[in-house]
Each structure stands twice: as structure tokens, then as C-alpha cells.
């Protein structure tokens, strides 16, 4: 990717996370990030593909995991549309102050899987929302923002290891014509298998 280009390809930005995550890290993906994560290769026992989802609830679900398993790093990959659906979660998270929690917003400005409609934040053109500022105002301990892949690549491990709660904003290019993700297997069975791995 041209390092001067604004916005990263979704797949490559997730690829950085795949290369960076350690064996004990939980990575939760949802919507477009789940689709691309599954296309990038085999799943790890601590990958939580949050499909089917309740849109907006991925950070809350991840918070529960972080509180139950404080020795594991919980990384949640959320979309900007999903985040807008539940901004209060930012405060729910910081009120608990989990040091093992990293929330990454993959911001493409659209509802990608429903046909690329703009979110209310981008309906008028430029984005109305400064997500890192929102996170800072909510009390996140660490705030990062990246719009170039090489910078994200160079910093990713340090970002994940910083004592959280940590908020990361990634500017992402939309994926034209992208389909919605499908559950990779029977969801309740996956939940049981994931719980076993998470509690190990």
C-alpha cells in the first residue's frame, strides 16, 4: 500500500493483527472484520467470530470476557457503525477500567454489508465524529489512531501491550460490494468450545 494513502485496506489491517496477536490473546471480530478475518486463514481457539451478533454489543461482550479472565488480553475489532449504535459502552468499559482490554474501531464511514450506506456520522460528507476524542472523553487510558498501514504495523504490539483500557482508531477503505459474514459453524457449539479455550 502507498504509505501516503489515507485509509488502510481492511484485510491488510487485520493481517497486521493476525501477525501480532500472541497465543493467549483473544481476538473478537464482527461484521466486516469477521468476514475478512475468516478469509485470512485458519481460526485460533481464542478467535471469537461474533456472527451472528447483536449489532453494537461486541465491546460489551468483550468487556465481560476481560473481567472474567484478567490475565488474558481481550482485543475487539468493531466497526464505526457498530460503535455508533452503542456509544455508552465506552463509559461502561472505562468504569470497569480493565487493563487487558483493547477496542479497535475499523472506521470506513459506512454500513458496508447492507449496501455501503453512510452512517449518520458521514451522511453529510466528512465525518462528524472524532472517535479518539470520544474515547478520551470517556476515560480510556490509551488512545491511538492510525491511517497508514506501515504505522499500524510498526506499533501494533506496543498498542496491544499498553495497559488499558485502550482505544484504537483505524481509518479503513470500504470494501465495495462486500457481503455479510456467515457463522463458520453452529454458534452454540462454537460458544462452548470458545469458553473451554478461554477458561483454560
Amino acid at each position, binding site marked *: 500500500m502507498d504509505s501516503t494513502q489515507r485509509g488502510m485496506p481492511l484485510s491488510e489491517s487485520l493481517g497486521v493483527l493476525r501477525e501480532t496477536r500472541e497465543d493467549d490473546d483473544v481476538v473478537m471480530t464482527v461484521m466486516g472484520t469477521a468476514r475478512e478475518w475468516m478469509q485470512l486463514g485458519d481460526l485460533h481457539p481464542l478467535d471469537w467470530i461474533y456472527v*451472528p451478533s447483536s449489532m453494537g454489543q461486541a465491546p460489551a461482550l468483550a468487556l465481560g470476557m476481560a473481567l*472474567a479472565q484478567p490475565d488474558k488480553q481481550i482485543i475487539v475489532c468493531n466497526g464505526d457503525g457498530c460503535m455508533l449504535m452503542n456509544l455508552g459502552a465506552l463509559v461502561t468499559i472505562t468504569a470497569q477500567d480493565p487493563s487487558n482490554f483493547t477496542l479497535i474501531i475499523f472506521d470506513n464511514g459506512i454500513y458496508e454489508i447492507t449496501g455501503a450506506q453512510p452512517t449518520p456520522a458521514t451522511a453529510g460528507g466528512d465525518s462528524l465524529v472524532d472517535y479518539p476524542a470520544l474515547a478520551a472523553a470517556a476515560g480510556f487510558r490509551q488512545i491511538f489512531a492510525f491511517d497508514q498501514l506501515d504505522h499500524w504495523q510498526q506499533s501494533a504490539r506496543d498498542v496491544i501491550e499498553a495497559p488499558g483500557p485502550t482505544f484504537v482508531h483505524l481509518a479503513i477503505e470500504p470494501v465495495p460490494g462486500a457481503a455479510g459474514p456467515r457463522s463458520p459453524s453452529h454458534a452454540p457449539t462454537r460458544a462452548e468450545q470458545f469458553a473451554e479455550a478461554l477458561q483454560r
Partner: protein
Amino acid sequence: MFTAPQVVALLEELAFTHVVTIPDSTLGQWEDSLKQCESIEYVGVCREGEAWAVAAGLQLGGATPLVMIQCTGLFESGDSLRNALFDYQRPLFGLVGYRSFLDQSTLPGDTCLKFTEPILDAWGMDWALYDQADDTEGQLKAIAAQCLKCREADVPGIALVAEGRA
């Protein structure tokens, strides 16, 4: 209907590790005691939909959470409840305050009375109403029995607790 010490004793007896909640006028009276309880972590959320998701994450991580919300929050949180309890079949237990059931003086004609029970029926969950204010000990025992029955069957459940005021 219940005092804070009664509720804390019940939740300790049932070995809940976390209470995920937003207070209302009744549930809020238990908050200080719950926060002081050493065996229970109090997790406040900003909206009830979060409560089911946080509780599901806690349970996946090996904890035993209770969701404690008002019936209005049950209405709000339907999609999150659907996802956690049905898509992923997480056997979560909830204590839901039934607004205005015992006293409609502050909200005459409260439509919570019209919708709460049909909505619980629609979800097809194990739920029971606890409205015998003159027999709180008996009601607490019944809630414990319902919770244990749900755990044994590995299914979700709701204890619907009658409240007086909004």
C-alpha cells in the same frame, strides 16, 4: 419487596460472581449492599442491552453473572437477549423488576403491566412472577429454587419481581 440484605444473601447463596445492572427505584436500594459484598462484583452498564452481552462474556469466561434490570430495560434489550440466550444458548439468569405491579400511584395505567408478561411468554423463557410481598422469605426460596432448576437444565431464566413504584 425485598431488603438489600435479603437480596445479597440470596445472591451469595446462589454463588453469583457478578451483578450486571442498571438501577431503578427498587433495584437501586440494593446497590450499596451489593457493592459492599466481597464475593460479588457490581458491574454497572449504561443501557440494558449491554447487560446481556457483558453477562454472556462473563459466563464464557467462567463467571456466574446475574442480570438485574427493570422490565422497561427488558423491552430495550431484546436484540441483545436474543443473541446471547438464543443464538449462543447462554443459560443466563435475570432478575427483572416489574414496575408498578404493586402500586400504580406514581404511574397510573403504566403500560408495563400490559406488556411485560406477554413479552416474557413470547421469548419462551422459564420465568416466574414473585409478587407475594407478605411472604418475602417464601418468595426468596422460590427464586433460589427457580434459579437452581434453570442451572440444572442449562437454560436461561427470569425471576420477575413485583415492584411498587417507578
